[in-house]
């Protein structure tokens, strides 16, 4: 076949500095690619047309998972499948393992990566909403620069993140909070689909009372939404009161209609997912206490 119309270039980076150099030198239509499970279908459908792809999936430094100081640090090229099976993730960030199990299907999880997911910024995705609840931070690097950006500020809209040309997400770190319990629930029209509504929750208990709570949902807005008012009401409440406290949440959410679901219907699904995520988190925290 003639190649006259095809100009896309591709290079596999071996180290982070090499990737950053390629990204910096590549120009405007340069994009990093990791698993490619979102980017390649978008290219196929004509929704993305990068001129230069820098493949970061094979960089050894991005493939590690370890505890550093008070954090679990997960390399950006760790796959969803690895999140679901890694013992360190299971111990220190079980929420990520549970959320990752809901992503697509096995063949997608085998290649899709945590860095790719958070950088892609799909508002319905499982990992970003979990990172909001976990108070996770993303390590963003560019030539000569490196900083940790909080997950909650990173999501800026559907497919919009605080990531600029030439920058690369290289790791996700999650504070270690051993006494917390975690829950994740999502509603999809069909197994493996993008969720219409999902909820991630983390709680710490003091006996039968909720000492602190974090709850975030998708489906309500163009990015994951922390339910701060709900978190305030849950804080100090008895575990047994949690569902009562959350009932009526649907009415408090302002969810827009779209062609696939009415906002009010989606809000009820969000409430159901949030209630179940908190319920599971409380049960999980009880197990941690025991």
């Amino acid at each position, binding site marked *: 076949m003639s190649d006259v119309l095809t100009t896309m270039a*591709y290079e596999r980076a071996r180290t982070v500095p090499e990737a950053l150099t390629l990204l910096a030198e590549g120009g405007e239509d340069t994009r990093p690619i990791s698993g*490619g499970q979102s980017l*390649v279908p978008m290219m*196929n459908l004509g929704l993305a047309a990068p001129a230069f792809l820098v493949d970061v*999936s094979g960089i050894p430094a991005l493939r590690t998972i370890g505890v550093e100081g008070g954090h679990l640090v997960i390399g950006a090229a760790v796959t969803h499948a690895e999140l679901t099976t890694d013992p360190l993730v299971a111990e220190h960030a079980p929420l990520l393992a549970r959320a990752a199990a809901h992503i697509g299907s096995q*063949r997608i999880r085998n290649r899709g990566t945590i860095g790719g997911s958070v950088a892609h910024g799909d508002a319905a995705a499982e990992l970003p909403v979990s990172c909001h609840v976990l108070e996770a931070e993303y390590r963003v690097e560019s030539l000569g620069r490196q900083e940790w950006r909080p997950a909650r500020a990173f999501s800026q809209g559907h497919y919009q993140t605080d990531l600029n040309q030439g920058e690369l997400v290289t790791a996700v770190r999650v504070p270690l909070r051993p006494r917390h319990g975690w829950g994740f629930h999502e509603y999809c029209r069909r197994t493996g689909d993008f969720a219409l509504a999902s909820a991630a929750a983390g709680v710490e208990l003091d006996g039968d009372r909720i000492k602190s709570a974090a709850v975030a949902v998708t489906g309500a807005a163009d990015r994951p939404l922390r339910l701060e008012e709900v978190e305030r009401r849950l804080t100090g409440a008895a575990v047994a009161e949690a569902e009562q406290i959350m009932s009526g949440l649907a009415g408090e959410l302002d969810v827009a209609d779209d062609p696939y679901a009415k906002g009010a219907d989606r809000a009820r699904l969000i409430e159901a997912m949030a209630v179940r995520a908190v319920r599971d988190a409380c049960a999980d925290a009880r197990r941690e206490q025991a």
Partner: protein
Amino acid sequence: MSHVETRMTLNGKEVTGHAPADTTLVRWLREQAHAYEVKEGCNEGTCGTCTVLVDGKATTGCTTLAVQVDGARVETSACLADGDELSPLQAKFWETGAAQCGFCTQGMLMSAVELLRSGEKVTPAKVREHLHGNLCRCTGYQAIVNAVVAAAEEGATR
């Protein structure tokens, strides 16, 4: 510019192809390696007909670029049979009627092989969970589930 040389070990044999860098793995396998057993059903990662194993892991051929798996070991369903003799898994598919129109079959087999090789306990529920990314429009899945469970009971890995 821009025809990229890509090499892989395809079903145990070295193959080399030259294609634009944005060529998906499924197109590369069909056009460069004439691996027509790999089917393209949606080109967006939904249907799973293009599922192959890359270094042992089920991979979606249309959401993966061929250049991304340069140097990798790729297995398609053509590696399963011994000549004309069906593999144990294929034989179970045959007995249960799990291949009807057959268009999903090649991808379905490869996802099933990944499960059989995983060493996990293979129950009907486990099969349904592991194969849910491989859509079938003909069989109703029951025969496929029966076939994979039966193959696992015999210790089959292919």
